[in-house]
């Protein structure tokens, strides 16, 4: 076993240790904390690259297990594993984290809790890497929960804002609902297979023996046990990855600092759900006859519906980060769909490309927000193309990748999902849902870019009407949505510093060119995950209808781009108050979408309403039923006591006085015991010792 596999634990341990050190250092030590976080991430990236190189040399599943806790006759085994999937994820997480850490140095420069921020970020990175290398569902679950915790901490980072605190709680509770399913799945899996180690010389729960036993085992409703467990695990994945109907927390999570949105709520943590499905794929996809398992069918439908549903909502949002949040949900739906219809490689390929272009888009949005002194409403931006050229260029690259414009990274990965969905043997509907979502994706991204980067700069115009001189300062104070930028005192919209733009450029390069590792002609990525060798073969384009499908999806994308440009880009948008072009055409549907299809409101009525009603009923019962009973009993007792006292006043009185004296003397004796003097305590101790010995002696004899 080579060095890197034995020491794979170092990759998550380094950022976690950095987090511990930062937690112990003082708030003022900004350079130290940022340096520790970035340095540990850099070393982790190097180690991850070594691991990837090792996997490239000889793809295999390697693991280290060790015994940790004994309970009864069983050992709880822990361990880590390295396979191509792990290696790819390690490199992606460490690279994206590193870039976002660097970006954060610039973005959070004015925040007084800079040190705390880096502590949480490093802890998050450690836990996320732990999820990736865990060879045990328990260990994975533990890291998974730590990831959830850091997500909570970082969403609520600006906890003085009530929305941020509420969003943090919402994220924690909604994902917890999914985690309950995951936990039940874990318990069921353990009770059936007797182990939660993934790979353990044939004895692991993802290996052939255990999986085939679970396929043979029938659960209720015509499900096999493996599918039922898979569905429970998918609950956890859906919560983490924001699949419908557990997606409601992700848009609200945008209350956190923008680098957090980029790192946790776009690139890595939300992808953990997708990764979990990929990791458990041998179990979830297992069937007796080699068809599609019931669990995978559910995953495909949920994914396809999520992709389309979230894309619809994104069309009508005004907040630059919320658009990206719904876009993330939509893309996560794509990944789930890809996993279900095309296998691990298809879903994970989109996960990787998405991680790069979506974190690019979020960081770009962060740069825009930073440059606009905290403004997040796209109606109030505009014309930033000239003022922030680097941000615009990189943002455009990310946007084209996300839309799936040919030759950009997103094109190859998304096209592969659509191609697999087209060939799915269960139903063709997910393909149409996915294609429709692709159209909407192109539409809403074009709308956003048109609003933000083109047209007139409505921000200056609006602010200029208020105060000629200090327009942006007042503006930032008025709209300080990101609680940021007020420290500048600079009014002008400005390009971000190099510490922010350089990560953007690197990410833009990835977003543009990463797709070429997984084209149909050279499916290196898919081959690597499958443990095969990839060959360059341009004839692959000709086979099995790939070219027509590519043409169709390109047409769809360009249709979306063109439609949006026709609506939003044709005439420059002049005023911040102007009605949305789409809202003019279809006011009704647009309004519904702008209110996010009332999902939050439906939950409010369906879940929170009944809960409140229950609480009210309980309160009423408490006040009238229980309290009434208590009052009745009390009244009865008082009445009896009154009769008693009036009848036997003399007797009782005398007796009572004696009793009182006795009690107070007893109380006096008890306070004497609490003299506060050591020696009286010691005396009692000595007497007690004698009494105890005598008691034991006689009880032994008798």
């Amino acid at each position, binding site marked *: 076993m080579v060095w890197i596999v034995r020491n794979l634990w170092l990759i998550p341990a380094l950022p976690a240790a950095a987090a511990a050190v930062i937690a112990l250092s003082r708030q003022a030590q900004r350079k130290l904390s940022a340096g520790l976080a970035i340095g540990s991430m850099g070393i982790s990236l190097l180690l991850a690259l070594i691991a990837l190189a090792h996997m490239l040399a000889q793809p295999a599943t390697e693991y280290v297990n060790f015994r940790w806790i004994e309970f009864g006759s069983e050992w709880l085994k822990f361990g880590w594993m390295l396979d191509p999937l792990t290696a790819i994820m390690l490199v992606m997480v460490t690279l994206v984290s590193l870039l976002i850490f660097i970006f954060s140095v610039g973005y959070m420069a004015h925040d007084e809790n800079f040190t705390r921020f880096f502590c949480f970020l490093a802890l998050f990175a450690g836990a996320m890497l732990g999820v990736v290398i865990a060879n045990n569902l328990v260990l994975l679950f533990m890291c998974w929960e730590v990831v959830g915790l850091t997500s909570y901490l970082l969403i609520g980072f600006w906890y003085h804002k009530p929305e941020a605190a509420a969003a943090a709680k919402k994220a924690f509770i909604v994902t917890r609902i999914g985690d309950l399913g995951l936990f039940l799945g874990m318990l069921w899996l353990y009770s059936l297979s007797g182990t939660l180690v993934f790979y353990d010389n044939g004895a692991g729960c993802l290996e052939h023996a255990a999986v085939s036993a679970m396929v043979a085992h029938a659960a209720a409703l015509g499900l096999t046990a493996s599918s039922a467990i898979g569905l429970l695990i998918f609950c956890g994945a859906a919560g983490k990855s924001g699949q419908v109907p557990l997606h409601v927390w992700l848009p609200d999570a945008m209350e956190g600092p923008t680098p957090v949105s980029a790192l946790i709520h776009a690139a890595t943590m939300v992808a953990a759900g997708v990764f979990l499905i990929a990791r458990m794929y041998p179990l979830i996809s297992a069937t007796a006859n080699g068809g599609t398992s019931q669990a995978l069918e559910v995953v495909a439908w949920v994914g396809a519906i999520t992709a389309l549903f979230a894309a619809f909502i994104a069309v009508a949002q005004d907040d630059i980060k919320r658009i990206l949040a719904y876009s993330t949900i939509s893309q996560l739906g794509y990944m789930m769909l890809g996993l279900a219809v095309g296998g691990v490689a298809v879903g994970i390929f989109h996960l990787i490309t998405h991680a790069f272009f979506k974190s690019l888009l979020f960081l770009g949005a962060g740069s825009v927000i930073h440059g606009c002194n905290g403004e997040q409403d796209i109606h109030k931006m505009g014309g930033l193309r000239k003022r922030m050229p680097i941000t615009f260029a990189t943002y455009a690259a990310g946007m084209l990748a996300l839309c799936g414009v040919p030759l950009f990274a997103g094109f190859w990965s998304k096209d592969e999902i659509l191609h697999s969905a087209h060939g799915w043997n269960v139903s063709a509907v997910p393909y149409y849902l996915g294609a429709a979502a692709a159209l909407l994706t192109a539409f809403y991204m074009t709308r956003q870019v048109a609003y933000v980067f083109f047209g007139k700069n409505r921000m200056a115009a609006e602010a200029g009407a208020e105060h000629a001189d200090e327009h942006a300062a007042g503006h930032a104070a008025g709209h300080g949505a990101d609680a940021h930028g007020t420290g500048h005192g600079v009014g002008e919209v400005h390009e971000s510093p190099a510490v922010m733009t350089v990560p953007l450029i690197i990410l833009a390069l990835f977003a543009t060119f990463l797709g070429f590792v997984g084209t149909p002609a050279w499916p290196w990525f898919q081959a690597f995950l499958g443990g095969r060798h990839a060959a360059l073969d341009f004839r692959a384009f000709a086979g099995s209808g790939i070219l027509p499908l590519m043409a169709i999806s390109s047409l769809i994308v360009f249709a979306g781009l063109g439609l949006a440009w026709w609506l939003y880009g044709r005439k420059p948008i002049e005023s911040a108050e102007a009605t949305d072009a789409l809202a003019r055409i279809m006011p009704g549907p647009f309004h519904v979408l702008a209110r996010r299809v009332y999902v939050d409101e439906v939950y409010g009525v369906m879940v929170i309403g009944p809960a409140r009603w229950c609480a009210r009923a309980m309160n009423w019962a408490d006040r009238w039923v229980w309290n009434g009973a208590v009052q009745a009993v009390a009244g009865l007792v008082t009445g009896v006591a009154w009769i008693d006292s009036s009848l036997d006043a003399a007797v009782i009185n005398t007796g009572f006085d004696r009793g009182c004296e006795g009690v107070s003397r007893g109380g006096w004796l008890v306070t004497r015991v609490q003299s506060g003097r050591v*020696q009286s305590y010691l*005396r009692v101790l*000595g007497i007690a*010792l*004698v009494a105890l*010995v005598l008691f034991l002696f006689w009880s032994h004899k008798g």
Partner: protein
Amino acid sequence: MTAPFVILAILAIAGATAAMTLRKLVHCALALAVCFVGLAGLYLNLNAQFVGLVQILVYVGAVVILIVFAILLTRHDELPAQTSRTRIAGLGVSALVFALLAWAVTAGGAKFGAAGTQPEAAIKDIGSALMQRYVLPLEVVGLLLTAALIGAVVIAMEEKKSK
């Protein structure tokens, strides 16, 4: 019941009694040293040479000196005797405990004990036992002593008046 035993026992008991009854604290400390020396003699009498020497080194050489320092560093004017109630109660309790122990000794102590063997606790054996079977307790005790050392310094350190 040999003569050395009787002499050493009387030394230890007399030292202990004096240490607990004399009025002046310094006298008490000196009596305590006598008691410890008597105990060390008893250990030697029991063939436990190493423990006897350690007793002299640690107790006579260190603990008693520490106590003398503590006496010097606190106000050493004589405290009045404890109230008679407390004295009587305390002496009663200690007499009770002694009665219990003495009764336990006479009732159960004769089961074994008159053995004629003369076991030796060679320092070599003690050393190898400390380094092999008892190495973990040894390390823990080392840690404890370090912690106690630091703790004692921190506790006794003069607090900064101005902060």
